[in-house]
């Protein structure tokens, strides 16, 4: 603080300035927030899927929050292949059991963790998924094995409502 006494004018200056700044900031917020997901988007945040028609070795892709979600009923060979991998071989180490609540069903967001393309199913060197954009290889558990992608394919929140129905989100 300087030795100058605090005057009435200093007080008015600072309070006016503070109120103006706070007012301006609160006015700017609606203009920023209007671009966030709106109520109609949030209302579509969860998707229920009937699993009955899917046979072992078959995959379906459903849309959840505008993104593709892969649901694959894995064959026993794929499951054993996924469980047999040593964690040391993985760039993003994760047990298969941590990725599939029920080993038969693999549910994951079908977006390559590199730059957002959709990987092709049952392709690539590890018999899992292969991203055509920049060549990332995923295994039968959707884990990254080779290529530029940094992490495994994302597992969304989901629950089994009963044996034949899951709810994503």
């Amino acid at each position, binding site marked *: 603080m300087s030795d100058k006494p605090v005057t009435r004018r200093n007080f008015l200056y600072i309070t006016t300035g503070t109120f103006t700044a706070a007012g301006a900031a609160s006015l700017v*917020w*609606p*203009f920023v*927030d*209007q*671009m*966030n997901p*709106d*109520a*109609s*988007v949030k209302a579509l945040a969860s998707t229920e899927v009937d699993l009955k028609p899917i046979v072992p070795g078959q995959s379906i892709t459903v849309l959840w929050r505008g993104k593709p979600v892969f649901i694959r009923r894995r064959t026993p060979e794929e499951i054993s292949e996924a469980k047999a991998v040593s964690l040391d071989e993985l760039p993003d180490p994760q047990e298969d059991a941590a990725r599939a609540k029920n080993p038969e069903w693999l549910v994951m967001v079908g977006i390559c963790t590199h730059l957002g393309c959709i990987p092709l199913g049952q392709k690539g060197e590890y018999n899992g998924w292969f991203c055509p954009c920049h060549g990332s290889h995923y295994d039968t558990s959707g884990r990254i094995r080779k290529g530029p992608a940094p992490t495994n394919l994302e597992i969304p929140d989901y629950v089994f409502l009963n044996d034949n129905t899951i709810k994503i989100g």
Partner: protein
Amino acid sequence: MSDTYVPKSAVGKWFNERLPLLDLIYGHLMPYPTPKNLNYFWTFGGILTFCLVTQIITGLVLAMHYVADADLAFASVEHIMRDVNYGWLLRYIHANGASLFFMAVYIHMARSMFYGSYKEPRELIWIIGVFIFLLMIATAFMGYVLPWGQMSFWGATVITNLFSAIPIVGESVTNWLWGGYAVGSPLLTRFFTLHYLMPFLIFALVILHVWALHVPGNNNPEGIDVVKGSQDTVPFHPHYVVKDLFALVVFLIIFAGFVFFVPNLLGHTDNYIQANPLQTPEHIVPEWYFLPFYAILRAVPDKLGGVILMVSAIAILAFLPWLDTSKVRSAKYRPLYKQFVWLFFANTIFLGYLGAQVADGMYLIMGRIATVYYFAHFVIILPLLGYIEKTKPLPKSLSEPVLSKEEKEIIASGATT
């Protein structure tokens, strides 16, 4: 205060030497010499600039959510009101902002008429202003069509049908405007495009308006010429920056009052019913700011005549600097004009009242009388007053009217203070 901008920072200096943009803005906002006696009616220029910027910003944001298609437009506006974060606030600011924009522009124009601001050497400022007003009318009308409610649809139908009054080519012109044989999706989409474009044209004209204003400088309540840099002027900053800001704050209080407490007061409930091409609402009225011109349109029992008169009511404003033959600017020194100009304002408001009534019986007769008076003011009263009116003597400076008798004597004796 210096007349040129001297940047403090090295970057500012580097920039200003290559592009003296800061210099230009500084010159127009800081030392610009302004008459020292401007009253609060002179704050509406700043308020109007604020209105324009507010409309552009809120409009830009609304356009991110709006869909300009006849099947989707109404639903997309409801989507903005219900789903989009703060969408209700942004739309209410935009809708009420349009009304307040017109309130401010009418006060701004009335001030110019009362104090004779449109007279030599400021004719061009006034004419640019008339063009801004025209663009505002077009923009507001097209904006009102976009929500695609009943009033939007039938307002668009009535106004575009005005063009069908043109002899011979009328029908082809309206079909061209519509992109079809009735008001529909093609019209809605092109109105959206033009509604988006026009505010930027207005913005460009506003720059010309201010540029033209800063050549002769502001008129003032006394209506006399002041010498720039004399004792009659003060720098724009801080004197009028603070005065304008204070007026803006008061204006914002009224604005917020509309937006938060009565957001639909100035609108029409029928516009919350989706457009129905098979049914016209029982009583169709334009937005309040068009009512005087609407009354003039309805006053004439002839299709083409009504349209011509309504267009003339606005076009005649551009000729005001020459229709008013008096050399004295301010109504303060024109005893007759002062009464007539108030009568003109009252008559225009009365026309607005009539525009909201059913066009029948007494209302129609009064509408015709008021319409005749509206034009008589411009083509009979104003030209004549310049010759028959005995004006009061004008003061020599802005200080003179407020000085006491003794102070005047001191000045007259040549003493310096």
